C-alpha cells in the first residue's frame, strides 16, 4: 500500500468506524459521507482525488439543499481546482492538515517521572474524553461511552499521561489493515510545552510496536507538525477542511 493511501485510508476508516454510518455520495467511491445529524460523531463529506468542475458543483448543490453535510475533508491533489469552486459557492477552507507517516520497529527510549499508559477503565475514559473535548473538539463534546465502546471492541486504544495523579495528555490509536492511525493528541492548556504530548505519543507508539505494528499515520495541523517531524514523521499529503459558512 503506498504511503498516501495508508494515510487517507486510516483517516477515512477511523471516521467511518467512529460514526458507525458511511455511504458513497459521489463519483467512483471517491466521495463518502460519514455520520448523521445529531449522531455521536460529526457528519462529514470525505473525499479524495481530483474532481471535475461539474462533480464539485453537484456536491455543492447537495450541501446547499441539506442533502449533504456542511463539513468536507478532502485529500488535496497536486493541481486542485476545488478551492476556487468551493469559495465561489460560500464554502471556505478553515484548516489544512498534513498527512504524515512514520515507519519504525524500535521503541522510543522514554525517561521521565510521569506515567503514560493505556486506559481501559470507565472513569479514566471519562477523564480522557473530557480532556479531548476541552482541548480538541472545540464546540462539541466527545461521548465517553462511544470511546469506551470503541476501545472494548478492540479497534481502538486510548492512552493517557498523568502528572501527580492528574491526566495531562492524551492520544488514541485506530488500527486497520496493519496501520496504526494516531488521533486526539492533546495536552491540557496549562501543561503545554513540557513534552507531555511527545511522551504520550511515543508511549502509544511503543505499545503498538510491542504488538508488531510498524506503520504509523496521523493528520497534523500546523500547530502539531513540528512535534511530529521531530519524532520522525514525514509529510506525504495535504487535506483541506472546508465548511459552508453559516451551516451547522
Amino acid at each position: 500500500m503506498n504511503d498516501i493511501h495508508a494515510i487517507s485510508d486510516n483517516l477515512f476508516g477511523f471516521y467511518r468506524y467512529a460514526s458507525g454510518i458511511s455511504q458513497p455520495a459521489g463519483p467512483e467511491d471517491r466521495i463518502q459521507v460519514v455520520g448523521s445529524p445529531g449522531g455521536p460523531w460529526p457528519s462529514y463529506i470525505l473525499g479524495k482525488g481530483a474532481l471535475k468542475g461539474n462533480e464539485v458543483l453537484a456536491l455543492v448543490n447537495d450541501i446547499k439543499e441539506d442533502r449533504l453535510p456542511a463539513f468536507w475533508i478532502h485529500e488535496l491533489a497536486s493541481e486542485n481546482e476545488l478551492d476556487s469552486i468551493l469559495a465561489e459557492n460560500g464554502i471556505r477552507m478553515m484548516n489544512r492538515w498534513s498527512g504524515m507517516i512514520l515507519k519504525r520497529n524500535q521503541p522510543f527510549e522514554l525517561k521521565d517521572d510521569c506515567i503514560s499508559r493505556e486506559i481501559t477503565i470507565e472513569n479514566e475514559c471519562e477523564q480522557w474524553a473530557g480532556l479531548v473535548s476541552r482541548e480538541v473538539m472545540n464546540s462539541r463534546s466527545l461521548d465517553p461511552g462511544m470511546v469506551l465502546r470503541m476501545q472494548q471492541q478492540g479497534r481502538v486504544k486510548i492512552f493517557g499521561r498523568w502528572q501527580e495523579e492528574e491526566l495531562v495528555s492524551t492520544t488514541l490509536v485506530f488500527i486497520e489493515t496493519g496501520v496504526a492511525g494516531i488521533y486526539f493528541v492533546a495536552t491540557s492548556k496549562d501543561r503545554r510545552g513540557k513534552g507531555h504530548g511527545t511522551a504520550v505519543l511515543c508511549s502509544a507508539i511503543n505499545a503498538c510496536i510491542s504488538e508488531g505494528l510498524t506503520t504509523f499515520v496521523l493528520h497534523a495541523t500546523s500547530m502539531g507538525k513540528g512535534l511530529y517531524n521531530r519524532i520522525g514523521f514525514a509529510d506525504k499529503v495535504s487535506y483541506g477542511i472546508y465548511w459552508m459558512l453559516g451551516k451547522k
Partner: protein
Amino acid sequence: MEDTRDRVKQIFTKLFKDEAEITDLTHSSDIKAWDSLNHMMLLNDIEMEFGIKFSLDEILSMQRFGEICQVVDQKRKD
C-alpha cells in the same frame, strides 16, 4: 486607520453579543462563543465589510482582536 477598530468591534459585538470590553489583547479563549466556526464567520464578515481577503495562514494565526485589526489595516493600505 482610525475607523478600522470601531468597525471591527461592531462586527464582534454583532456576532458575539458579548458585553465585556474588547481590547487589543482580547483572545478567542476570552469569549465563549468565539469557537472555530464563529471565527470563520467573524473573518468572513470582516472581509465583506472591508472588501479584503484573508489567507488561510492569516485565518489560523489571528486569535486576538488587536491582531485582526492590524492585518485589516495592512490590507487596506495595500
